[in-house]
């Protein structure tokens, strides 16, 4: 029963922690496409530790976040980090100055074919500025407010708003009725 017992403990920890850890990894990773890999690496490490020592007296969420942090560090080489930062770094104030996009646009106003939404998400994920898929994940999947996202990502609210509305416009242009990705 040893491995079955450990699996039982592992399942309990996974159930309790995976949503918080997923949010943490999404926020901290450099590319949202790496989320699943980092999650898997983190829980595999936990499994190995669980087989060696008892973790019942520790704060398991903090412990997992510690493992995830190390995995994130290892996942990206310095060169990758520099590339990501240089490509996506944006000046919040600059955005506010150049941004003339009306911020009342609603995602439900865009007309996109039903079976195109997976492609839409792929398009969002492929953005060079990886803050965009992160913001979309936090806003549309976890339904956090702009204020909460701003706090989590340590960016200004106007920057978050800008990313959402600018990307919604892009989606309308590219996937709407006349869009180049529109699958007619």
């Amino acid at each position: 029963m040893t491995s079955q017992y450990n699996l039982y403990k592992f399942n309990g920890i996974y159930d309790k922690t995976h949503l918080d850890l997923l949010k943490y990894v999404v926020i901290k990773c450099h590319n949202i496409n790496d989320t699943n890999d980092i999650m898997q690496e983190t829980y595999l490490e936990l499994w190995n530790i669980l087989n060696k020592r008892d973790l019942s007296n520790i704060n398991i969420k903090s412990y997992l976040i510690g493992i995830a942090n190390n995995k994130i560090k290892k996942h990206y080489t310095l060169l990758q980090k520099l590339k990501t930062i240089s490509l996506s770094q944006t000046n919040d104030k600059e955005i506010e100055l150049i941004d003339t996009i009306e911020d009342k646009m609603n995602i439900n106003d865009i007309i996109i074919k039903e079976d195109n939404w997976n492609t839409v998400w792929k398009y969002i994920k492929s953005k060079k500025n990886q803050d965009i898929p992160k913001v979309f994940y936090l806003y549309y999947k976890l339904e956090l407010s702009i204020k909460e996202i701003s706090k989590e990502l340590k960016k200004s609210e106007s920057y978050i708003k800008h990313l959402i509305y600018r990307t919604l416009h892009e989606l309308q242009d590219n996937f709407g009725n006349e869009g180049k990705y529109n699958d007619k």
Partner: protein
Amino acid sequence: MTNKEKLKKAIEQDINPKDCYKEIINKIEREEKMKKKNNNLWKWSFVPICLVTIISGVLLINNSKELNPNINIPNIETKDNVSLYINDISKMTQGVLRSDTDVKITNIENISYFKEIAGIKIPSDLDNKEAHEIYVKPDKDSQEYNVLQSYVVNYSNTENNRNIIVSFSKDNKPIRDYYFSEEGSKMSKINNIELKIFKYDELYFTEFNYEGINFDIETSKITEQELTDLLLSIIK
């Protein structure tokens, strides 16, 4: 469905904790298999080294005196009421057999008194005790785990990873996630009750029926003497 919900669904399909969990479990299983393979590889590479050592030893002994015929002493302990034979799995052909059974394990918060294991002799350092109930589905198509399959009591020492897991049930054979091949295995006898004891690395495993109760015992890092004491405290 609104666009917001459609996008949410697309995100969930892509970053999906259920798929992630499945992938983790697959990787764990692959890693466990690899570990076993590597252990076997190491064992096989160990064989020539042992052979060389044995041959050298034999030559050395032959030079001084005749070869002692009892080099391979079987792992048998015999007393009046105890006759133990430890079946070493690493030396058997089939080894460990995996079994995937769908179960639900619940914690018993207040560990109740189990008359089946009253007076059980557990090493004093295993001071951590947890009890669980194992539930299974009544049939394959059922969604609910509502059939009590067995009870499990786990005694452990968190410092040194020693533990004893005692599973028992009156109506069922307790479930385990792997079995040892019985091919070529030999019986032990304790107080006239026959049972098979298996060993794999630091693990002992045995199952037997005593007074109508099916027992399944697995130990980790427990000595042969401690195992004997434990069995004698159940099979009285």
